[in-house]
């Protein structure tokens, strides 16, 4: 809670004078970029799981033995996403649009995919007790480092996959996401650092670019309506493409 402490110090320093309190934050607020808008992932984004230099890693280079074992025989029917369950970071590259709504102390990300949202608290609070509060999309807090929004996400519930290849995420998974406007505000560059001591042997990175498309609008996406790929809810006569026993061997 280093950031909370820093906020407390800032507040204490500006407390003696109401005038100072008004003047000091003014410059800080003015410097904070506004990420609001509708963002669509770009083909400029990198593929795969990357090292700190954004070079793609092979599975053996970043998965623990538990991670390698979990992905050796992929069972697509057991993908939480095939049961309409959302996940972070998976919902970030989507590929569906994300509407970002920013206001003081909070930044909301409205995901078209699955019509779900997350709120990033940028008011200095920390994460809740990880034993008591576990979530599919984690709990997110943010702060600004210059022009970059830095989001720290924890409190995962251990029920999601990192990606469709079947890498699980444990309750100890921890993300640091960095959001920076580029190209005169028309692009949003997102670098995500992912740690998970259970399934990842080293931090892995994702590198995404989004294009601002305020001429688009978020559509509804309610996954439960026609989910024939949920093998646990298949209807008679119209099978989906997945079967419970499907197994894809790792290459």
């Amino acid at each position, binding site marked *: 809670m280093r950031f909370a402490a820093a906020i407390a110090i800032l507040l204490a320093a500006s407390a003696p004078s109401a005038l100072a309190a008004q003047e000091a934050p003014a410059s800080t607020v003015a410097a904070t970029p506004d990420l609001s808008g509708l963002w*669509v*992932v*770009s*083909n*400029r*984004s*990198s*593929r795969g799981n990357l090292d700190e230099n954004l070079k793609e890693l092979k599975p053996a280079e970043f998965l623990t033995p538990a991670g390698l074992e979990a992905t050796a025989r*992929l069972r*697509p029917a057991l*993908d939480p*996403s*095939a049961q*309409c369950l959302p996940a972070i970071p998976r919902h970030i*590259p*989507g*590929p*569906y649009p994300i509407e970002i709504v920013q206001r003081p102390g909070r930044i909301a990300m409205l995901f*078209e*995919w699955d019509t779900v949202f997350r709120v990033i608290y940028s008011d200095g609070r920390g994460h809740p007790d990880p034993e008591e509060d576990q979530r599919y999309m984690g709990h997110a807090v943010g702060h600004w480092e210059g022009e970059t929004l830095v989001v720290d996400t924890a409190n995962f519930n251990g029920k999601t996959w990192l*990606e*469709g*290849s079947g890498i699980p995420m444990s309750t100890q998974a921890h993300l640091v996401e960095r959001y920076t406007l580029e190209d005169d505000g*028309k692009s949003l560059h997102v670098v995500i650092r992912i740690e998970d001591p259970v399934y990842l042997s080293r931090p892995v990175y994702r590198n995404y670019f989004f*294009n*601002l*498309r305020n*001429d*688009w609008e978020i*559509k509804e*996406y*309610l*996954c439960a*309506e*026609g*989910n*024939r*790929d949920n093998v646990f809810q298949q209807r008679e006569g*119209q*099978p*989906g*493409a*997945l*079967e419970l026993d*499907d197994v*894809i061997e790792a290459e």
Partner: protein
Amino acid sequence: MRAVISTVLGFGLAMGTASAGSAHHSFAMFDRSQKIQIEGTVKEFQWVNPHTWVQIMAPHHGVTTEWSIEGRSPNVLSRRGWSRTTLKPGDKVTLTVYPLKSGKPGGAIISVRFADGRVLNADTPTAVDTNEEGPR
């Protein structure tokens, strides 16, 4: 009505290989080294999330069978020129699909050719490369 199987080499734009990946689930159960043409009559077009489905009556091992052809979501397809009325029951169409590896009458749609020769792509990447593209 006939089913034609051809092997394709360039399938880099297939579902799941775009940078953003396939959203809802792995498409590994489809054989993306083959494209099959299914010529038949649309029974039903299910314009639903997470994925659309074309139920089409077409030959399977010589017998007219109901195929279940999975497609991208209405959200993706509606930005690619499709709508809920693009396919209607009774329409005579030819679908190009990646077949199920299992050999069952199913697959993932790549494109549709209508009776008048018009072709609509169903498999373009969702991600957009520049801001120059118009609204979808």
